Each structure stands twice: as C-alpha cells, then as structure tokens.
C-alpha cells in the first residue's frame, strides 16, 4: 500500500475517529476540545502533505475492498488527484478554523461535547465525498453529511425555528438525493461500474446518459441549494453561527458543485444536461440575489448570497469553465467562512444578527469591521481579492461559450452570462446595504466587545486566504487542471470592465438610497416588492400549500382507510372463513385458547405419529 493510498484513507479516518472519541469524552470539555481540534488539524496537515505528494502526478486510486450486490459491485476505493486533494485541504482548513473558533464561541454551551463530535463527523463525511472513487461510497458520505447538518442546525432545539429548519434541511435535500441515487444507478448501468474512474472512460453520448446526469442534478440542486430545492438553506442559519460557516463554505453546499466537477467528463458529453444546469444556475443566481436585497437578518443575507454564489460556480461548470467554477468554489469557501465567522463575532458582541438592531458598529468593533469589509468586498468582487478573480473567470468562461461555442447550446451560455452580470449589480447592492446598516449610521448598541483570541485567529487566517487566494488565482486553477482539463482560467477585459462598472453601479445605488432614506434601510425604497423579496418570493408558502398539506391530508385518509375499510374487509373475510369451518366456533365465543390448544395438540400428534411410524 502506497503512502498516498494510506494517507487519503487516514484523512477521512482521523476526523471520524475524533468524532467517535468525542462522543465518549464529550463530558470533559477540555479533552473534547483537544480531540476535536486535534483530529481536524491532523487531517489538515495530512491533506496538505498528501496533496503536495500527488501534485502533478497521476490519479492514484487505492482499492480497499469489494462488496458484492448481485449487480454492479460496490468498490471501496479512495482517489487521490488534484481536485480531490485541493478540496480536501479546503474542507479540512475551514473545518479546522471552525473547530478552533467554536472552542471559544461555544464555550458556555452545555452540549459542546456532542456538538464538536458532530462537526468532526460532518467533516469526515465531506472528506469521504471528496476522496471516494465509488459513487455509492460517495453517497454514504453525502447522506451522513445531510443528517449531521440537520442535527447541527437543530442544535438549539429549544427554539421552534431551529427544529423546523433541521427537518426541512434534511428532507428537502433527501428529496433531491433520491433523484441522485437513481441517476447513479443509471450511470452504473451504462458504465458497468460505480467507480468514477471507470464511468469517466466508459460512457458515450446518449439520451440515457442525459437522463442520468439530469437526475444527478436533482441531488446537486438539493445539496447546493439551487432553485427549486433552495428553500432549506436560508432557514438553516437557525443553527449556531460556526455551523453556518461550515455548511456554507466547506461542506454540504460545496458537495453539489464538487459532484458536477467529479463527473465532468460525463457532463461534457451531454449538452442538454449542461443546458439544464445553466438554466438552473441562471435562475438561482438572480432569484437569490434579489431575495438577499431585503433581508433584515445579516445571516440571512449571507445565506441567500451563498445560494447565489453557488449558482455562479454551477453556471461556470455549465459553460465549460471547469477550473473557473471550482476556483470560485475555493475562493468562496474562504470569504464565506470569513463572513459567517465575522457575523458570529457580531452576534457574540451584541447578541443579535438583525441588521435593524445594528448600526455604527465600526467604532466599537474595529477589527470585526475590517474583517467584514474584506469579506464583503471579496463577495462583491473587488480586485484584487479572491472573489474578483474567481468570479471574473466564470464570467469570462461564459462569454467564451456564448461567443465561440461550448459544451452547451449557445442561448444557455448567453443566459448564464447575462444573469451573471446582472447578479454582479445585485450583489454589490445587497452587500453594500448590509455593510452600511451594520457598521455605519447611528450607533444603536453600546457595550460591544471584540472577540477573544480563539475566535480572532481563525478570522485572521481566513482574511489572509481571502486576500492571498486572489494572488494565487493565476496559478492555482492551472495546477488544478493538470492532467484533467487543459482550458485553464482566463480573464477577458470586456467582461471584467463591464462587471466592474456594474459593481460600482450597485454600490452607488445602495449608497445613494441609504443617504436619501436618511441612513435607514435602503430596501424600503423597493416598495411593495420588499416583503416579497424578504420572503424569498413566497416559495415556502407555495410548497406548504401544494406539497406539505396534501401529504398530511393523505395521511389522515390512510389511517381512516385502515380502520374503516381494510381492517373490516379482512376481518370480514376471516369471519366468513370461520363461519364455514366447524373448529373455529370456539373462537367465535372468544375461547381462542381452545383453538390454540387444538393446534398445539395437532402439531404434537403429527410429530409423535412421525416418530412412531418410523
């Protein structure tokens, strides 16, 4: 067994073991902290070491065992290639930051032990998704992640909104996962294997392949919170803030984007599936950005921005920008983790994340202010931060596909490009609005304090990444490409200038409105649209009326049917049978014992006769 093979398995096993140990020693806070931080930290170090080892080398697949199914076997195999290890480093790094941050943020929480263990399990599951070569094994990690997210979102289970959000997160994503599962079966049927490495080489363009890949997109839409399965993510911020950072940056939502990247060879063969992905991404991008405009909760603004940014990544992948989409995934992980942890710092300081109760925080929370500013600037795409380069590379890829053709129909590429540019404007507007409302204007809270060191250090680290990844931007995606895709990342001047103009326009619009409204919420100028945007276009209410309530009505019908139709029918048949027979007369008088005894006697007699006859 090679070093790389053992290493990739250990990267998953370490946080998994940390989770098991954490459950056992959860009561002793100090030990639980060491286990949680240590397990994730070791996984991070190992991911970096293995990553450096395989960098530029071949894809290395290590098989650990085969499980017969009676059909296509499940192969337990780990996979080391630039994509999986880059993402492993990303996941472990964000998880490490979250664990360190949580030692302080959750220090007064009586349930820290189980919390930290679940975060470790969550991390292990995501690492399994990233490092597995077999789709069914990937699905195991995928679903464990789903349940971990539900349990962590429901961490404050005393609160009704946390309980509801937890169930919603799991069930909505699970719904998408059923499509995913069937999609995997169709792929395995076509390729004769669940292994990505085999599927990549064995499939050919066909309608069946398109169907399979569109089914896979159901799961992607669920996990990466795309329309129409996006509804769980805004509510999911009911969980503790570090969990939001974890879900929105490194795990869970990243998995959907990663999966499209993982199956990219197959997607390139299915233009229709790519077009579906492009439409989904374009709609989600604008939809989520509009919804973000009118939120009152800072975490909700960030949640909708995640949905919108994930659509950028998927849009990038759809137009053929493999490295562009994944580059945006990585840079987004850095700045979104930063934004959520900074939002946590604000919550820690003033006890709320509602924008309407903030204002003028820049004087009291100086450090948090600057950190938040860096994060929001990266989100908006201000050069030379990471977000600028990664977003521009997506837009450039879209322009390329629109003008020169790509792996999808031209109209779909245009759609992504136009939606992408429009979203730049909207993103600039909502980010500026949140920034102004939180840090500028009249101070509304007194006595705010800066976060303690254990919370500050991860923020500094992530700030450095948010700035640094932009500089690395020209090198990293190219390296990611090595041996996979030769397209690389390009920046086109036309789209860059256009989007910078839109960016300035968005900032300007939000700023002038803010001034005009006497430093109150600029969203009020949206008029009657504001509450609609704030409620995410009422999609929840629509689902409630068309899906949830009918299910409960059906459930009541079923129970009534059981009691009044099926049971009498079956017992009725029973009575007829009994009436026909002589023996069960006793039973009709309620003396079942006699009947039973008769059967028992019959059995014994039969046995004795058997022995005697012999």
């Amino acid at each position: 067994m090679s070093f790389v093979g053992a290493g990739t398995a250990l990267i998953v096993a370490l946080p998994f073991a940390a989770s098991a140990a954490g459950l056992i020693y959860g009561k002793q806070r100090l030990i639980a902290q060491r286990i949680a931080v240590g397990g994730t930290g070791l996984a991070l170090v190992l991911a970096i070491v293995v990553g450096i080892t395989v960098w530029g080398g071949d894809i290395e697949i290590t098989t650990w065992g085969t499980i017969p199914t009676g059909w296509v076997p499940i192969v337990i195999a780990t996979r080391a290639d630039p994509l999986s290890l880059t993402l492993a480093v990303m996941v472990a790094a964000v998880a490490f930051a979250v664990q360190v941050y949580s030692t302080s943020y959750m220090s007064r929480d009586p349930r820290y032990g189980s919390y930290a263990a679940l975060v470790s399990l969550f991390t292990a599951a995501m690492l399994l998704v990233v490092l597995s070569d077999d789709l069914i094994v990937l699905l195991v990690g995928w679903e464990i992640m789903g349940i971990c997210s539900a349990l962590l979102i429901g961490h404050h289970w005393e609160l009704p909104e946390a309980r509801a959000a937890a169930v919603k997160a799991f069930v909505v994503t699970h719904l998408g996962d059923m499509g995913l599962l069937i999609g995997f079966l169709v792929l395995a049927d076509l390729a004769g294997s669940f292994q990505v490495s085999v599927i990549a080489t064995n499939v050919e363009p066909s309608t069946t392949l398109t169907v399979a890949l569109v089914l896979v997109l159901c799961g992607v839409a669920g996990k990466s919170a795309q329309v129409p399965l996006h509804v769980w993510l805004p509510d999911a911020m009911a969980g503790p803030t570090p969990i939001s950072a974890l879900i929105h940056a490194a795990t869970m939502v990243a998995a959907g984007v990663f999966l499209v990247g993982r199956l990219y060879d197959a997607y390139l063969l299915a233009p229709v599936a790519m077009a579906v992905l492009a439409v989904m991404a374009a709609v989600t991008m604008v939809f989520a950005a509009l919804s973000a405009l009118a939120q009152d909760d800072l975490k909700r603004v960030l949640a909708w921005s995640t949905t919108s940014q994930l659509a950028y990544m998927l849009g990038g992948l759809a137009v053929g920008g493999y490295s562009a989409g994944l580059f945006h995934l990585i840079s987004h992980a850095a700045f979104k983790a930063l934004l959520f942890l900074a939002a946590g710092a604000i919550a820690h300081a003033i006890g709320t994340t509602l924008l309407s109760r903030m204002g003028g925080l820049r004087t009291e929370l100086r450090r948090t202010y600057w950190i938040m500013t860096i994060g929001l600037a990266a989100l908006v795409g201000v050069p030379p931060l990471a977000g600028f380069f990664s977003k521009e590379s997506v837009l450039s890829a879209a322009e390329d596909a629109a003008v020169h053709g790509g792996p999808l129909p031209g109209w779909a590429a245009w759609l992504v490009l136009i939606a992408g540019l429009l979203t730049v404007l909207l993103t600039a507007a909502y980010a500026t609005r949140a920034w102004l409302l939180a840090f500028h204007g009249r101070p509304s809270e007194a006595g705010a304090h800066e976060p303690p060191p254990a919370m500050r250090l991860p923020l500094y680290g992530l700030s450095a990444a948010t700035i640094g990844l932009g500089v690395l931007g020209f090198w990293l995606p190219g390296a990611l490409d090595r041996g996979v895709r030769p397209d690389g990342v390009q920046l086109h001047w036309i789209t860059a200038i256009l989007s910078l103009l839109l960016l300035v326009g968005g900032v300007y619009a939000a700023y002038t409105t803010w001034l005009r409204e006497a430093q109150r919420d600029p969203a009020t100028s949206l008029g009657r649209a504001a509450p609609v945007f704030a409620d995410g276009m009422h999609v929840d209410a629509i689902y409630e009326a068309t899906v949830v309530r009918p299910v409960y009505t059906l459930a009541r019908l079923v129970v009534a049917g059981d009691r009044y139709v099926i049971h009498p029918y079956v017992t009725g048949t029973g009575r007829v049978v009994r009436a026909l027979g002589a023996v069960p007369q006793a039973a009709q008088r309620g003396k079942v014992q006699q009947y039973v005894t008769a059967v028992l006697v019959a059995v014994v007699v039969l046995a004795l006769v058997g022995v005697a006859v012999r």
Partner: protein
Amino acid sequence: MTTLLHLAIALPLAGCITLALLPAPTGRRLAPTVGLVTSALTLLVVLAVVVVFDRGDAGRVQLLADVEWAPTLGLSWRLGVDGLSLPFVVLTALLVFSCLLYTVRIKPPGGRLRAFVALVLLLEVGMIGTFLALDLVLFFLFFEVVLIPMWFVIAWWGEPKDQPGRVAAANTFILYTLLGSAIMLVGFLYVGSQAGTFDMLELARRGGDGLSANVQLLAAIAIVGGLAVKVPLWPLHTWLPDAHAKAPTVGSVLLAGVLLKMGSYGLVRIAVPVVPDGVRQIAPVLGGLAAVGIVYGALACFAQRDLKRLVAYSSVGHMGFVVLGVATMTPAGLNGSVFAGLAHGLITGLLFFLAGAVKDRHGTSEFDELGGGMYARLPRLGALVTFAAIASLGLPGLAGFWGELLAIVGAFRPSAVLDRPYFLVLLTVAVIGAVLTALYLLVTVRRVCQGEDSIGPRLPVLGDVTRHEIASWGPLIALTVLLGLWPGLVLTLVDPVMQGVGL
C-alpha cells in the same frame, strides 16, 4: 458438527422444559437466570456455527443433517445452514439473548415470570428451527410452534391497562397468521404431492422443473399468500399494529425482529426457488402491493399518536421494501430483501426496546402525554431514540440503507422475464415512500426529543438509560453501525446463494 444445529434447537427447548419441571418457588426465583444462561449458551452455539461455517463456500448448504422421520408421511428431519439462513439464525439467537438479558432486570408487567421465560425459549425453538429447516413440512411445523407462545406473550403480558384490547390483539394475530400458515401448508402439500418430495434442496435444485405453469401458479399463490400475512404485505397488515402495540417490550422486539422475517425468509427460501415460474406470474401483483405498502405505511405513520404504534406501522413500510426485492426476482433484489429484513430486525428491535423504555419511565408512549424535551429530561435515551430513528429512515452508513438500496437496484433492473417499465414505476413509488419515511421519523424526533420539556416536574424519579439497558441493546446498536459501514459482512454470505436463485 451437525450436532451444533441440533444443539441450537435442543438448548432452548431444554431450558423451556427445565423451567416447566422446576418446583414453583425455585422456578420463579431461577427463571430469569435459566433464561439468560440458556439463551447465552444458544448464542454461543450459533457463533460456533459461524466459526465452523466455510464462508468461502457460502452458497452450499453446510452441516447438513438428514434423518428420515416419517417416510410414510414423506417427512424428514432435515436441517442445514447456508449463507442465507446463517445471518437469520444469528439474528434470532442474538435478539433472544438481548431480550432475556433485558428481562433479568426489567420484568414484563403481569408477573408469572417463569412462564414468560419458558415461552420466550419456546419461541426461540420455533424461530431457529424455521431458519434451519430444509423440509417443507418441518418448516411448517417450526413455523407453527411460534404462534402459540406469542399469543400468550401478547395476551398475558401485554398492555397492562387494556386487558380486553390485548387479548383482542392476540386473537387477531393468531387468527390471521393461522389462516395464513394454513394456506401456506396447502401450497406445500400441493407442491409435495406434485413433485413427490418435500425436500427443499431437491425442489430448489429442480427449480420448478416438472411442475406445470398452472401447478406453479396455484402453489405460488398459496405459498406466497400465506407467507404474505406473516410479512405482512399490504393489505394483510392490519393484525400488526395492534399486536405490536399491545405486546410487552420483549414480545414486540421478537415479533418485529424475527417473526416477520420468517415470512420474508420463506419467500426467498421456498417460494422463489421452488416455484419460480409461479412467482414470476404473480410478481407484478406482489411488487405493486409492496410499493403501495411502502407509501401507505409511511403515510399512516404521520397520523399516529403513540410511539409504539408508530414503530409498528413503520414496519409495514420497511417490509414493503423486503417484498419489493423479492418481486424483482434478481440476485440484487433478493440480496436486498434479505439485508433489509436483517436490518429491520436490528433497528426495529432497538426501536421497540426504546419505546418500551420510554413507556416504562413515563407510564405511556402517547405523544400528547409525553410532550417534548426528552433531550433535556433523559438525554441518553433521547440520543438513542434519535440514533434508531436515523437508522430506520435508511441513512447510508447504517444498516437500514443497504437493503433498501438493493431492493431499488432490483426494481431498476428486474429479472428479464418481468416488465421493466412497470417496475420503474414501482421504483418511483418506493422512493417517494422513502422520503416520506425520513420525514415522519424526523418529525417524531422533533416531537418527542426536542422542544420544551413539559413533563419533567411531574415525574420526579426518572432515571436515564441504565448500564443494564445499554448491555441489552448494545449488540443491536453495534451491529447496526457495523453492517452499515461494512455490508459485505452479510452480502458475501447471501450473494452466493442468491446467484443461483431467480429467473
């Protein structure tokens, strides 16, 4: 080595007889110990079988015992074990051991402990015998042995507050299942008379050769119909909710954990190999009813107001997957049926233990009276309920997933002699049922475990899960995780048998 199989049946029988013969005061005092020791020894014997069993040749029947018993009746004492029966025998021995270990400290309501333990041991005789029998008549005999003890367990030790209700539940149970097994026996006798033998191995080897299509159809209807009551297949399930809900904890655990599996095992062991063409003809009906049952069971759970009843109804849905796997008549589907059955035994067994623990502590398992906040009141019990619910909804990485996955694989690629588009529709229905299952289980966790603890002050003495309970449930929890992470443990045993079965 064959002695091991005889011992696995003789030991619990000996324990049962010993208890019956002991003088009353001694018997009453020693009953739990005798039960525990007997079931522990039986478990050891079964584990010895696992050690002796040649795993490399799991498709072959091993440790074969074949003694002519009543040649004039065509009856033989024929026992053996292969990769299909071995996991079920282990499951049975393990669950009975767990139950009797549990009984040492937590007595069923209704006293008469000696009779209770003796009957549980008698149940074990029937259950293990059913899984080991290789003769149709012998199979039927063991199948019947189980019924009577279970009637007593439900009627005498069931729900203490509802004497008429528990007797009615026990009566419904026994009338349904007796009727079912009578029909099954008719099918067996018909096959036996037509083929000239009751030897299950010989019949399976012939695979229906020499039996005309009509004979096979009639036999399949009788055998499958009879077994379907036991499984139970929708719409023959209405005995189940009452029987499970009214039975004492140990009774519910064994009912759900093992008794239902006797039905599904019979489908895989007898119906499909012996009259394959007959099963093929009714497979669309079978699969359709199974798929309806999956959704129906899930929907019914939404409207339940009692934890125990909810767990009972959840079985209807889970067993739907078990039957759906059979109906596909493919190795994958049959593997799935077996795996789903085993996983259901572990997970639903655990759920009934937990529901019993909830009831012991609160005197009720009704949601309205329980209120919420079990995490606050009894954190360890709450955590275990959550774990079991997650396992039950079929989360990958826990045992419940693999059976459902393989049943779905089977429906995705059903046997070539079946209509694929039809099975794809069933697959879709089943998958919707799986999502609904996830929803009601999580809603149940939310309702019982989370939220405000409204009950705390009213019940001052409420201990959390004890060490003794952990010891009793431990094997189930451990196996749920182990089989979830390494399903190959069972599939390498079952798959070689299933490769030879089906059309």
